[in-house]
């Protein structure tokens, strides 16, 4: 437990990926303090040039993820108390993404893969058609619902060792979105989705060890979604063979 007025020993990554280093800051400990509070305090009181990213501060926008003591976290909803080691915090930019500077990563590869996985809606109707009625209890809708609370924070992407070792791998979040769209009754191009997730960076590369599910701050389970994609691709493989 941190008693009040004690200082935290905070090591923050400064600079670029290759030439950067951890710098040490002393930050006053407070009750109910989050990692984002710590980073903001440093930026506001010690070094205004510290680069980092956040927006909503309530776990909605998915922009504040960083590595905290070696593990990916949404920093606005991570209490210091929960992750403090001794009296130390080590805060680094998110793993598996290019570092822009300090704690800010370039999220482009992450979002490019959402597009590459066909993780977007393929419309079947126009604005003139009636709105399609959906059965919330159908198995497909339930499978789709299981993934829709994703906030694109890339915590799972940072946690995934397959992403680390295979730069082509589309990653848990993009594949989970592909599975969500695949299960959406309103979507009109399931073959395109299966095609997109069956290439050399596709769903079949997942080792099913579940780091993504372990770390997802919204308790989503991309691993299960990816298993669904694998099943669907096997089914379509046999259909095509016949």
């Amino acid at each position, binding site marked *: 437990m941190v008693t009040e007025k004690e200082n935290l020993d905070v090591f923050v990554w400064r600079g670029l990926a290759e030439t950067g280093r951890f710098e040490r800051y002393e930050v006053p400990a407070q009750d109910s303090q989050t990692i984002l509070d710590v980073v903001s305090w440093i930026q506001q009181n010690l070094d205004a040039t510290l680069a980092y990213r956040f927006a909503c501060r309530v776990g909605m926008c998915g922009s504040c993820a960083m590595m905290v003591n070696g593990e990916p976290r949404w920093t606005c909803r991570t209490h210091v108390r929960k992750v403090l080691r001794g009296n130390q915090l080590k805060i680094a930019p998110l793993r598996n993404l290019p570092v822009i500077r300090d704690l800010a990563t370039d999220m482009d590869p992450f979002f490019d893969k959402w597009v590459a996985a066909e993780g977007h809606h393929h419309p079947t109707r126009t604005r003139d058609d009636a709105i399609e009625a959906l059965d919330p209890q159908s198995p497909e809708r339930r499978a789709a619902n299981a993934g829709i609370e994703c906030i694109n924070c890339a915590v799972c992407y940072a946690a995934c060792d*397959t992403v680390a*070792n295979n*730069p*082509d791998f589309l990653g848990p979040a993009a594949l989970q979105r592909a599975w969500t769209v695949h299960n959406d009754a309103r979507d009109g191009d399931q073959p395109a989705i299966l095609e997109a997730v069956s290439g*050399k960076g*596709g769903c*079949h*590369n997942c080792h099913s060890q579940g780091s993504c599910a372990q770390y997802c701050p919204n308790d989503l389970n991309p691993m299960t979604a990816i298993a669904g994609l*694998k099943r669907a691709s096997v089914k379509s493989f046999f259909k095509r063979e016949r």
Partner: protein
Amino acid sequence: MLDARLYMLQRITALIMAPLALGHIAVMIYAIQGGLSAAEILSRTQGSLFWFAFYGLFVLAVSVHGAIGLRVIIYETFGMRALLLNGLSWIIGAIFLLTGMRAVLAVTLS
């Protein structure tokens, strides 16, 4: 580095290997009841088209399955280019196949 085609190949070869491995173990348990000797094993396998097909198919499935598996490990560990990786995978598969078939022939040729 596993696309849908390699994934399917690996699953299908696994499906082939599983019953063959079980069959192998079952025959082993059955055959050693009255003691175990090389002559006894060879008398069963030599000249048998069935055992040649049984273990030949197993070796073929293992070669494909193992080569794909190692291919993934090699790529994720060393990150090779596709051409090199494919070449290496074929070589590994061929080594499995050659050594395996050599053993199969050694016990089934009469």
